[in-house]
């Protein structure tokens, strides 16, 4: 469903980052491990279409992301991808429920309620995001990531700040949501605790072109 080929990204004034080729099919999951600074987040952003690669191709359901215009890319991302960021971002002036429904491609209120019930944050829907604890905020982020019934869920370091118990919980929530939505799941992390739970693990080396 999603595959990359010869993907490269170069930040201004630094050496280009080279990413390994990946292929991932519907309903499967992939863990991308790597030390800090090896370009994990950049890789994730490339996959999400938040950034355009300097070289290489990303193909999603036979569509090449780099060929899309900026607004087409926004539309594509909004429709097919759900992203859980390293930090939880919210529109501060809106309630949690309004934040869940913020995407123009989000399904509906009923879905928000069922998802939140599963994630056990259904009693927090009318609060403002800043009134939630970090753990609750992360659940809300996961909830928002699946509101558009995505084909691909991307998660950036979802467990790095959590203890073992919560780490397991978040991981199983992500997997569960991916399964329910029939979505592929890609997690990038430096958290070695997660390795045992994935069949597909790619190690991202700080490989830079010399």
């Amino acid at each position, binding site marked *: 469903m999603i595959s990359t080929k010869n993907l490269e990204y170069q930040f201004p004034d630094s050496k280009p980052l080279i990413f390994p080729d990946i292929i991932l099919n519907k309903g499967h999951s992939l863990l991308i491990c790597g030390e800090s600074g090896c370009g994990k987040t950049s890789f994730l*952003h490339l996959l999400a279409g938040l950034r355009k690669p300097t070289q290489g191709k990303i193909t999603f359901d036979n569509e090449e992301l780099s060929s899309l215009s900026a607004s087409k890319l926004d539309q594509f991302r909004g429709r097919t991808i759900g992203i859980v960021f390293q930090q939880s971002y919210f529109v501060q002036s809106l309630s949690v429920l309004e934040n869940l429904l913020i995407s123009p491609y989000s399904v509906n209120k009923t879905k928000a309620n069922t998802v939140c019930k599963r994630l056990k944050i259904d009693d927090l829907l009318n609060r403002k995001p800043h009134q939630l604890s970090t753990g609750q905020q992360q659940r809300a982020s996961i909830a928002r990531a699946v509101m558009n019934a995505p084909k691909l869920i991307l998660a950036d370091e979802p467990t790095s700040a959590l203890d073992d118990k919560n780490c397991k919980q978040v991981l199983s929530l992500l997997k569960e949501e991916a399964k329910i939505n029939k979505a592929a799941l890609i997690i990038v992390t430096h958290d070695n605790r997660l390795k045992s739970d994935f069949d597909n693990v790619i190690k991202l080396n700080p490989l830079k072109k010399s």
Partner: protein
Amino acid sequence: MIGKIAWKNIFYKPLNTGLCVSLLLFGVAIISLLLVIQHQLNQKFEEDLKDIDLVIGAKGSPLQLVLSAVYHVDSPTGNINLAEAEKIMNLPVVKNAIPLAYGDSYQAYRILGTTPDYIEKYEAKFIEGRAFKTPMEANISEQIANKTGLKLGDTFVGTHGEAQGGHVHDSHQYKVVGIFKKTNSVLDQLILTDIESVWIVHDSNHAEEHSKGHEQEGNSNKLHDEENPNHHDHALEEHNHNDHSHAHHIHEHENKNDDNNDHSHLHTTIDNKNKEITAVLLQFKTKMAAMTMPRMVNEQTNMQAVLPAMEINRLIYLIGIGATTINLIAGGIMLMACFSIFFALYSRLKERKYELALLRSVGYNSKSLFALLILEGFMIAIIGYVFGWFLSRLTLYFLNEQAESDFNLQFSYMFTSNEFWLLLLTILVGILAALLPAWQAMRIDISKTLSEK
């Protein structure tokens, strides 16, 4: 959804928004108030002027003559001799001539002696009764009827001068014979009576009170200093204007008629030569005649003739200078409002960039973010305008309380067409202020923003 985010966001920082709105509000209120007052003042000036081509009155300030004789907001310049005025009134080029005589008031409403032509001129429609026909009959507007409580058939006495507490002519009672519907003209603020009534009241005044005064003491007034035959010389019509040194009042002649004590047929015996009126409103058959008349009157008689339209244009021009100054101040406030909206949106951009990037990541394109910020500026502008408009109307309400008693003016609260342009201007201010922040929001590097720790 963008609209909802914009709406929620402007209330998320109520103090920022409050500052922007209050600046806009004051700017809008001042400009709107000026627009309404200027518009309605011009309209009122024009409507009350009807087709009065020329005003003739005693020499003095031309503007004062127009304000007193046409709009009844100033004191008269003095009196003119009826016989002399009639020479002009009877000229063949004159289409219509209405004499005016005044001096008395009832509860601060001016009692105006005139002819029924005056009522017809302002197209008054009677609710009850009819127009006055004989002396001592009076017509009032429903407005005055409501304020004073006078009803059809009621009688009342005038107070000498215009202020309350002046000398009361209690021996001559006016009778209300007709109440007319609101005309939205100067007529609404006047008590109208036959011109003869004024002569009767004042000519007979002294002698009659001398004989009757003591009988009525019980039920009438405290101000019985009638023993002094010169009591009218302290007439309230005497003002401080320099050009009034030669102002006369009807009453100064009453002593000459003192020997004429036969009141029963008084109006037939008053010497026409000594009859005085305050002013004449003239309409000519051709505009040309109106243009040449002032010179003739001013040179050949001791009266003055004034083209009211010209005087009023000059007055409006003078008011306009003052209004422009205030408008400039209001414009400055609007400019400050523009800056404050800009600062409010721009300074929040830094903390909001994460949520803006988030919006992009869930599917909004950069144009939507541009629209979001513009919409916020727009909404602040609309709120400022709405509150400003209501503030202007509130101010107008208090102004009306004042203006009605002082100048016989009543402003309406209606939306004027100029205020539509003010709305557009306000929206422009809001959008202009949001333009640069919106541009910045559009260009946010989402990937960089979302990978910041």
